[in-house]
């Protein structure tokens, strides 16, 4: 019990590579591999290996969940509530169940408190589902379901929902059943008044009143952000197949292993009898992390029908009922001394996640710039609208929009350059370097005073910073197999949702074994393999690459022992060089990789490694999740052109400077940063879920009226990637997805202010919003 595993000292690279590296000494577990040198001396890591599944994706051979077709497979369709708030009086499935081609029908809406009536709380909420031989027959059968609704008063506008006489979404006893869009805490721990839940008060400290009293300057702003939908190109999709041994599921999911646990719990099956697979996966962005009601529905229908069932959402179902980024209304005040030193930050926020809770604007306001006095009170506002869930940079993306504009406003009041102010109040040397590089690339020194252009087209430059915890999934394992013919496999249930983690795994294993990434067979996205991490929260690479390298190293050590024993040498003297194993400094004792593998006693050998703790420890850990000591940062600089006659904002250029520890595949990281920036531009300028407050229906549940950024709207993006060695793990690699998205809208807003001299504190910054801000048309919230 008290046997601490043996440890040893290792010197690991440390610092920012382009400024010169030092080493750091760490006490690491003895069964972890030796220190990995900086990328400059490596053959595979840090190089741009082509994406492992690129060929399958460009030829159409890649198999997504929507492409899975099993013999005898049925097609499911979901009946959804047409009412934003209604009591379900009765439901009769008998005619639908008896319809031609229909094999199963079931009600899926449940009461929150058992014994109480079923209440529906948003338009599009699932009520019942059928499985039939064709999608058309399933759709037709929905019309035979006889449902009696009793419509109730409802409210969809968060401002209206806060009023005392607004129709209530929940009663107090129902709170512990409210879905969470944020931390997995129960809503029942907070007070509920009408539709207002809270406050959540996690980050407050010090004495805010004294802090503001000590301030020479105070900025005070009200910021609003809209509801954004995920818009995954592959809709939510599942194929569920019950069989005598258990349940097989193919699912477009960000977390095969997590969905397995949820399915097993829900259906009372052992983990070993539930298998979840995903090959290619068409985007998640936070919305495909859970089993979900749709997952349960498909599995239940399959059990009932005794046949495989496929459920694929239509685009309008995606838009109404697959999650979204919650709205926010943030009242942010910041006080500072005349030299810029922050004395107080007060953030009072209201956010609506519809019928869910967890709409807080993240921890960025309390964490990015240290301040002794902080008051952070957040209230969730329930509305009769579809539930939010996590979406790329949840919380901090909304929070950065308010915080980074306020910091710029503060800089202006202090007559300081925004970068100079941040240099004073942000202690992170990595952030400082990111600002320096970004400023250099965008031409910050040429930046002019606000509204300098005399004509109607006005250009401006602005910047903002990201902050995101460096998440690690401790419940992460990876297996590496070496076969007697020399072939190598890497196996994990981890899924590649488009980030390229499969490529990264092949590179890490290839590096350790002296092979090419293309020689490594990547087998992932299947819970039959060791459990991998989820693909959310920018934690995948940080979690899976250290055990991948460790497992490869252990396989290599085992092979070395076999060869050393045959050659009667010390295994410690063996090295891999140019695809062969040899005795160090003795090129005559040399054997090819294939010949060496042929000497194995068995057909294959294998090692499975788990994610060790970060070598210097974690800042925080809870269950399977941990947070590394240093956050992930990133500074983004934007140049915009505002047409003050039409109100159209064009983002011309973005420089995105980011750190993610040791970069494994810089080009894939560049792809992901470009994607984060483009999602941020789209969020800043175009996207908004619009609900009809008279009916509760979404008015733009499609790709026509819900505007997404296209190629012609995309700015030039320059990605600058730091190599930031910290000596934290066997790979020392961390994530990138969320930080790439968090700063963008704020950087654009600051650039818009620099262009037109008017601050826009509400998203999206549509042409109408710009014209309102300029006072050229009436209305707006500015």
């Amino acid at each position: 019990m008290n046997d601490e595993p043996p440890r040893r000292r290792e010197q690991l690279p440390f610092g920012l590579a382009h400024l010169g590296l030092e080493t750091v000494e760490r006490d690491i577990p003895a069964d972890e591999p030796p220190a990995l040198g900086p990328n400059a001396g490596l053959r595979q890591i840090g190089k741009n290996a082509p994406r492992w599944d690129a060929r399958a994706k460009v030829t159409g051979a890649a198999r997504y969940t929507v492409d899975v077709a099993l013999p005898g497979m049925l097609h499911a369709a979901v009946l959804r509530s047409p009412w934003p708030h209604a009591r379900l009086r009765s439901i009769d499935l008998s005619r639908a169940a008896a319809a031609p081609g229909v094999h199963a029908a079931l009600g899926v809406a449940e009461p929150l408190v058992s014994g109480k009536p079923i209440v529906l709380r948003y338009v599009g909420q699932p009520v019942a589902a059928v499985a039939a031989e064709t999608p058309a027959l399933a759709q037709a059968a929905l019309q035979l379901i006889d449902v009696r609704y009793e419509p109730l008063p409802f409210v969809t506008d968060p401002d209206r929902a806060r009023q005392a006489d607004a129709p209530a979404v929940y009663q107090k006893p129902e709170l512990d059943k409210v879905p969470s869009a944020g931390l997995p805490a129960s809503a029942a721990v907070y007070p509920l008044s009408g539709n207002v839940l809270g406050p959540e008060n996690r980050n407050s400290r010090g004495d805010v009143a004294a802090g503001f009293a000590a301030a020479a300057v105070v900025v005070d702003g009200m910021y609003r952000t809209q509801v954004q939908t995920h818009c995954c190109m592959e809709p939510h999709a599942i194929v569920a197949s019950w069989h005598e041994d258990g349940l097989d599921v193919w699912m477009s999911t960000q977390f095969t292993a997590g969905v397995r646990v949820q399915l097993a719990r829900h259906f009372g099956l052992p983990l070993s009898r539930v298998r979840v697979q995903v090959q290619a996966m068409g985007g998640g962005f936070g919305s495909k992390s859970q089993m979900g009601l749709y997952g349960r529905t498909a599995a239940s229908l399959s059990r009932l029908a005794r046949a495989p069932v496929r459920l694929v959402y239509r685009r309008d179902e995606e838009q109404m009922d697959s999650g979204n980024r919650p709205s926010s209304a943030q009242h942010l005040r910041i006080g500072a001394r005349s030299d810029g030193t922050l004395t107080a930050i007060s953030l009072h926020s209201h956010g609506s996640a519809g019928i869910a809770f967890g709409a807080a604007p993240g921890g960025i306001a309390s964490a990015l710039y240290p301040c002794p006095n902080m008051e952070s009170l957040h209230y969730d506002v329930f509305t009769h609208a579809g539930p939010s869930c996590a979406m790329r940079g949840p919380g901090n993306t909304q929070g950065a929009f308010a915080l980074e504009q306020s910091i710029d406003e503060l800089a202006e009041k202090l007559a300081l350059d925004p970068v100079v102010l941040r240099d004073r109040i942000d202690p992170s040397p990595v952030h400082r370097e990111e600002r320096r590089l970004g400023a250099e690339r965008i031409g910050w020194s040429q930046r002019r005073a606000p509204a300098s252009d005399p004509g109607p087209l006005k250009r401006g430059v602005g910047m903002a910073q990201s902050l995101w915890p460096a998440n690690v999934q401790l419940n992460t394992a990876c297996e590496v197999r070496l076969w007697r013919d020399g072939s190598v496999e890497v196996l994990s249930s981890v899924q590649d949702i488009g980030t390229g983690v499969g490529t990264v795994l092949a590179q890490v294993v290839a590096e350790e074994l002296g092979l090419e990434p293309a020689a490594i067979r990547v087998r992932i996205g299947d819970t039959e393999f060791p459990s991998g991490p989820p693909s959310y929260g920018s934690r995948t690479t940080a979690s899976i690459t250290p055990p991948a390298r460790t497992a490869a190293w252990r396989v290599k050590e085992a092979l070395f022992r076999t060869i050393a024993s045959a050659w009667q040498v010390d295994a410690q003297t063996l090295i891999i060089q140019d695809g062969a194993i040899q005795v160090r400094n003795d090129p005559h004792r040399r054997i090819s990789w294939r010949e060496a593998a042929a000497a194995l006693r068995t057909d294959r050998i294998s090692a499975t490694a788990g994610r060790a703790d970060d070598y210097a420890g974690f800042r925080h850990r809870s269950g399977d999740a941990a947070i590394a000591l240093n956050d992930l940062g990133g500074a983004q600089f934007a140049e915009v052109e505002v047409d003050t006659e039409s109100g159209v904002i064009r983002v011309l250029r973005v420089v995105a400077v980011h750190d993610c520890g040791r970069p494994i595949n810089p080009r894939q990281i560049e792809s992901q940063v470009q994607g984060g920036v483009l999602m941020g531009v789209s969020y800043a300028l175009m996207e908004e879920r619009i609900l009809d407050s008279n009916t509760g229906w979404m008015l733009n549940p499609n790709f026509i009226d819900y505007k997404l950024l296209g190629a012609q709207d995309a700015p030039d993006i320059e990605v600058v990637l730091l190599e930031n060695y910290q000596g934290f793990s066997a790979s020392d690699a961390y994530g990138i997805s969320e930080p790439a998205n968090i700063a963008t809208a704020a950087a654009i807003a600051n650039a818009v202010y620099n262009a037109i001299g008017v601050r826009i504190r509400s998203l999206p910054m549509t042409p109408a919003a710009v014209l309102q801000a300029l006072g050229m048309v009436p209305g707006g919230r500015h």
Partner: protein
Amino acid sequence: MANERRNEDKAVAAGHIAGPGLLPIVLQVNGEDHDLMVEPRTTLAEALRGPLGLTGTKIACNHGVCSACTVWLDDLAVASCSVLAIEVGERRITTIEGLAGQEHLHPVQEAFIAHDAIQCGFCTPGLVMSCAALLARNPHPDRKEIETAISGHLCRCGTYPHVVQAMLALGTREEPDLE
């Protein structure tokens, strides 16, 4: 209602209305003729993905906006979710599966791989089909022409910059020696 039904029956009898049941059609896909039975409402995308099993063509919006389902009708890139299978007639259909031979990739596919113009990949087959169509009519497209050619495509992962980079690289590559 009754009148409508009577009119419909008459129209069917006169051969003016097809369906609503299954109809036999022939689709020429990737150089081969396929006999299949489809309802009149079946879209080309559904016919390709369902009975023909050509799932490389993706349906993402199913209302003609995102272009994930792009195929060629003769030489024209179209959204196959917005074309009925029964109206294709004798036009040649080329899907992502038929763009290149078994051995070699199309240059656009090579360029997408080289420039990592791929993330989740769901929109990629459609983008490849539009880019290949552009290249066929304009071997040296400039940035504006590329952006215009792919302006109907939606990619939530944000691969546009690498798609443009891949196509620009193709447009400036050395021409094969024609002699």
